[in-house]
């Protein structure tokens, strides 16, 4: 019972932090708002008031988007670390983001008139392609891939996809349009996108939460899982579909953001232990907290200009990655 009490306390603390961050994000930005304006915009909306309009039409969708994407990236990171039994797995590091980016580039070049929803399909398709490549290659080997090899393989796959998309962009003279997308950040998220893509993200997150009892099993050897009467391939496939949907949609919405999926599951495990039934909810909330925080900093550090929020994440993520590499882990 002790661990459950601790988990409840930790989770409630994180949820309180999440609420505070949500309110702060809505309040601060290029222009500050009073608490009254924020409350009015939410509960007593008057479309003639410009401040309220900014909050309602621009800031709220952006903040919700940031929170959802943070959860999605963190969740896909946790799922991948679980499936590959590899502490270094992350959708950015394994090249899944760059696969999505390649398909997006192609859709920009060949079908420039598509709506955001349609380009998202391309992005998810690209993410699927890259994950099939990464996991297909690593499962073709009989021996388990070591974390370092997996990271290097991911780097090479990223380099391949990036070379392709940059080459295509150069030939077709796409220029900076793509760069803006790559690092575009959360500023472009609007209600329309949230309504269409939000349900998919939430669905993916729910499936991940439902999967958690099975995820604990994946730490066992394949034989013991089979002897428990569970079909390991079904668990793995569902997990991978979740990863593809979550990371594909995140990339389509905010560009290639790495490191969220790497850091958050580790922090969650540090806080609540190794049981995925407790790790997963923590991961979702912590992921949302991280991206909200990064987005808030990105908006307020140099107003009215926006700093790309991927940089803020990297500033946290790179030291963490180096810490993981320096930690004398037998498996690395």
């Amino acid at each position, binding site marked *: 019972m002790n661990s459950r009490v601790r988990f409840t306390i930790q989770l409630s603390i994180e949820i309180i932090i999440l609420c505070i961050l949500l309110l702060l994000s809505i309040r601060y930005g290029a222009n500050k708002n009073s608490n009254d304006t924020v409350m009015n915009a939410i509960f007593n909306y008057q479309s003639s008031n410009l401040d309220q309009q900014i909050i309602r039409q621009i800031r709220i969708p952006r903040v919700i988007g940031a929170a959802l994407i943070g959860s999605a990236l963190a969740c896909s990171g946790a799922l991948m670390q679980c499936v590959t039994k590899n502490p270094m797995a992350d959708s950015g590091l394994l090249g899944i983001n760059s696969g999505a980016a390649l398909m997006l580039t192609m859709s920009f070049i060949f079908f420039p008139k598509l709506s955001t929803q349609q380009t998202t399909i391309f992005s998810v398709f690209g993410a699927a392609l890259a994950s099939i490549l990464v996991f297909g290659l690593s499962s073709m080997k009989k021996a388990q891939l070591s974390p370092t090899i997996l990271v290097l393989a991911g780097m090479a796959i990223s380099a391949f996809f990036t070379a392709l998309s940059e080459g295509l962009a150069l030939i077709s003279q796409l220029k900076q349009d793509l760069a803006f997308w790559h690092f575009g950040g959360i500023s472009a998220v609007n209600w329309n996108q949230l309504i269409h893509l939000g349900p998919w993200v939430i669905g993916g997150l729910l499936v991940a939460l439902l999967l958690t009892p099975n995820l604990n099993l994946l730490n066992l050897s394949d034989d013991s899982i089979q002897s428990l009467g569970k079909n390991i391939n079904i668990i793995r496939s569902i997990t991978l579909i979740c990863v593809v949907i979550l990371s594909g949609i995140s990339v389509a919405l905010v560009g290639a953001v790495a490191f969220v999926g790497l850091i958050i599951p580790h922090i969650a495990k540090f806080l609540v232990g190794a049981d995925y039934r407790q790790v997963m909810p923590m991961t979702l909330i912590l992921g949302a907290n991280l991206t909200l925080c990064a987005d808030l900093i990105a908006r307020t550090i140099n107003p009215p200009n926006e700093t790309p929020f991927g940089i803020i994440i990297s500033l946290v993520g790179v030291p963490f990655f180096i810490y993981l590499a320096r930690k*004398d882990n037998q498996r690395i």
Partner: protein
Amino acid sequence: MIKKAKLTTWIITLTITIIILAIINLNTGQMKVTPAEIWQLITGSGTYAQSVVIFDFRMPRIIIAILVGFALAIAGDVIQTTTQNPMADTSFLGINAGAGLAVMIFIAFIKNQDANLFMLPVMALLGALISTVTVFFFAYKKDTGITANRLLLTGVALSGCFSSVMVLFTLKLSPENYQFVMNWLTGSIWGTSWSFILIFLPWFIIFTTIIFSKSKVLDTFNLGDEVAQSLGISLHRERIILIGAAVILAGVSVSISGGIGFIGLITPNLAKRIIGFKSNKRMLLSGTLGSCLLIASDTLGKCLSTTTEIPVGVIVAIIGAPYFFYILIKSNS
């Protein structure tokens, strides 16, 4: 004896391939020059325009491609042998990203680029070296020194960091500068004049000589750390010297050719498969394979599109990636 004959056969075949590719490369481009006309140029007749195109633009480019391909391949070979990791490459040690960031900062802040044409490779080299020193610094730990895996992972992390800082500058660039930087990052041989070759050659000769003179030491790395140490070789020191030489070689190459990956990754593996583990032979073969791959990619890029040039780095990646996937499946980690 069979081994020796095998190496000679391979080197001769590859050299002939390189020469054929070079001749094709000389002929392709906006201005067509047939082999007969090239012969006329060499013997002293031929138009002025043709001689400018051939001798001042295409010839240096081909020579740079051959040298850079060779340098990148043996640098990758050294990194793979010293770290005992078939997936390692100099581009993973933060060299490409560091050089790219330096070039981007340089282009973003210095307006008059033509006057500073020769500053660009210097800046790139500086960026490559600074980033490598940083990688070594973070990979170092008091009790265990620098382990191979930690070095590679730190390199990956810092590459990620540099590319996200690059974003800041990307958005500041004018479209023309952006196009130039993107071309640079994907890897297009842009240092195409004899003066670049003159700058490059001393570095190339010094550091390839150092690496080849240490081929016996490299052999011992294949035996494992314990055996090497029992032979009286100071493993850490040799490893740092060799990796340092490889990094400088790759840094100089990248600074005049742009961020080309994959050559140092795949050619050593291919060479190992063909010739075995003997370091001096293997490095000679992987270097020649590297030259061949780079010049083939350059020629292919020129032939595929007549209007815009496809950056050679893209072609190298397209050719190299499938073989890399093959290595990944076959290697026993």
